[in-house]
């Protein structure tokens, strides 16, 4: 009995909390080629995975498939021990949420607290518990004073933070960031990034869709997509040094890395300087 229980716990740890994608294919109705062309990967619990690629490589399509917004053509997707089907969608969305690129198009209500409550209402949480949940969610993004504010009076960064807090309020374990920082100014972008780091520390699984290499460097693993296929799935350091992958996916490597590679090519061998440059690359 005990052994069975232990097995169940191990099963929980290994299978339930992860996303398993196998031979996933997706095609838009009006297109000839597959937008997602037979990709397979797994994402473990509390992992920070960045999905990078050029425009039209299928990054956002993949996110939409994972959220159940688009229906896959073939292949298997297993999320949190549910198969990705129409019937399981409500349960799957209890585990996974998405923060979109444009903070403007994610709000349902005019007042911040009402908008955060929208997700809670859909999860059928009792109304007397909602206020404390909303307060907690706002505290996590340090926006407690904004509870009664009008959404249209907020700046882009503030809106994105509210969008994140409305996802946090739903107590999900996986959050997809679909180019969530691309419309923000550098300061707000840094704020969002440090928030994501905190979420990772809190045990959330992060899937970050981006074409900013500096952001991808902070993750545990990078999945590089090109024309609907995975061309590299490795730790960021390895992806960055693979120039063929970078050129294939139209990605620009950070300037520091460029300097690092150039110096190495020229035969510069001061190890201290090279190490410092490499550290600088990783910190970006």
């Amino acid at each position, binding site marked *: 009995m005990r052994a069975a229980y232990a097995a169940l716990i191990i099963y929980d740890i290994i299978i339930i909390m992860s996303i398993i994608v196998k031979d996933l294919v997706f095609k838009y109705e009006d297109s000839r080629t597959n937008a997602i062309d037979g990709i397979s990967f797994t994402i473990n619990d509390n992992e920070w995975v960045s999905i990078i690629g050029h425009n039209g490589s299928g990054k956002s399509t993949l996110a*939409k498939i994972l*959220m*159940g*917004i688009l229906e896959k053509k073939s292949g298997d997707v297993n999320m949190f021990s549910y198969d990705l089907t129409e019937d399981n969608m*409500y349960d799957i*969305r*209890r585990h*996974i*949420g*998405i923060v*979109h690129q*444009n903070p*403007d*198009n*994610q*709000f*349902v*209500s*005019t*007042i911040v*607290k*009402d908008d955060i*409550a*929208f*997700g*809670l*209402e*859909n*999860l*059928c*949480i*009792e*109304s007397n518990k*909602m206020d404390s949940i909303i307060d907690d969610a706002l505290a996590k993004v340090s926006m407690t004073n904004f509870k009664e504010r009008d*959404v*249209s009076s907020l700046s882009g960064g503030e809106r994105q933070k509210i969008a994140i807090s*409305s*996802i946090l309020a*739903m107590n999900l374990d996986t959050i997809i960031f679909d180019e969530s920082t691309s419309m923000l100014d550098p300061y707000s972008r840094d704020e969002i990034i440090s928030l994501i780091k905190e979420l990772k520390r809190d045990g959330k699984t992060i899937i970050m869709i981006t074409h900013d290499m500096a952001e991808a460097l902070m993750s545990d693993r990078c999945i590089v997509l090109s024309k609907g296929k995975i061309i590299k799935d490795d730790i960021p350091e390895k992806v960055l040094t693979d120039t063929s992958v970078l050129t294939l996916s139209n990605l620009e490597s950070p300037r520091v890395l460029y300097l690092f590679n150039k110096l190495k090519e020229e035969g510069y061998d001061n190890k201290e300087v090279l190490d410092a440059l490499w550290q600088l690359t990783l910190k970006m």
Partner: protein
Amino acid sequence: MNKNFVIGQYVKGDSYIYKIDPRVKIISILILMVSVFFLKSIVAILLFMAFVILILLTARISVIKAIKGIRPLLLLMIFIFFIQILINMNGPIVLDKEMTLSLLSIGIAVLLVLAYFMLLRYIKTKIILLFIILFLIYLSFRFVPGIPNIIKLFNFRVYKDGLMTSLYVLIRLVSIVLLSTILTISTTPSDLTLAFEWIFRPLKIFKINSEEIALIFTIALRYIPTIRDEAFKIMDAQASRGVDFKESIFFKKIKQIVSLLVPMFVISFERSDELADAMLSRNFVPGRPKTHYHQLMFRFSDLLVVIFSLLILGGSICIYILL
């Protein structure tokens, strides 16, 4: 276009009227509006108007704000007033003037019309200017001696009943508009939506889901400022390419509006697609039962408000039957 407009007329406050349940507020104001129509004498309607003003004052709603609520209907009111005066020809004559047309008065009228278009650029309240000019034209027809008197136009007669009816209609309209202004000033748009959701719940029999309609209203309220900003952005973009939205002839204006509307529609459809995705991913399933963050509370004082408004309705029906 006014750049600083606010959606709804809600003004923050904390008097008793703000504390009434929005459902009760809507229903009692509807009851009061209905009871206005049972009042037939001008004395009764004046009393009712005094009652409405009393509500305004005791609820500490700024009278200026309430009057601003009447402004959009000003033109309609003046129109109704004059139509009533002109059409109703019962009772003794109050005013009887002969309208004459002469070369001099025509000249003055033409000059006044020209003056109107000249002044239009400098004066913002166009309606008031229009009425001043019309009044001056009337005076010119009335008082300028017809030296080469061309034709006698008509006798301008005002009858006592016409005057009374038009006053009566005017006061009735003003009190109804004031009542609705009290409602919109003292209730937030989201509270109004909630209340309407509750009121329209019985429509479920006809398979109309009031929750979804309320959600549509909420989203519409949310996106009015966003889409307005978008419109200004497009207008600026068009203006930088030489389109003049302010001063151009009518047909050109229509063309410009089309050039504004097409991109607006495209952007709005994109927006709604993205919003639908965002709503779906936040576990929204249309028609699925859900809980509500805002709970409307029906208190004892709300009951009193309903009873009071019903009493007024009853009273006005009594007056209608007895008199």
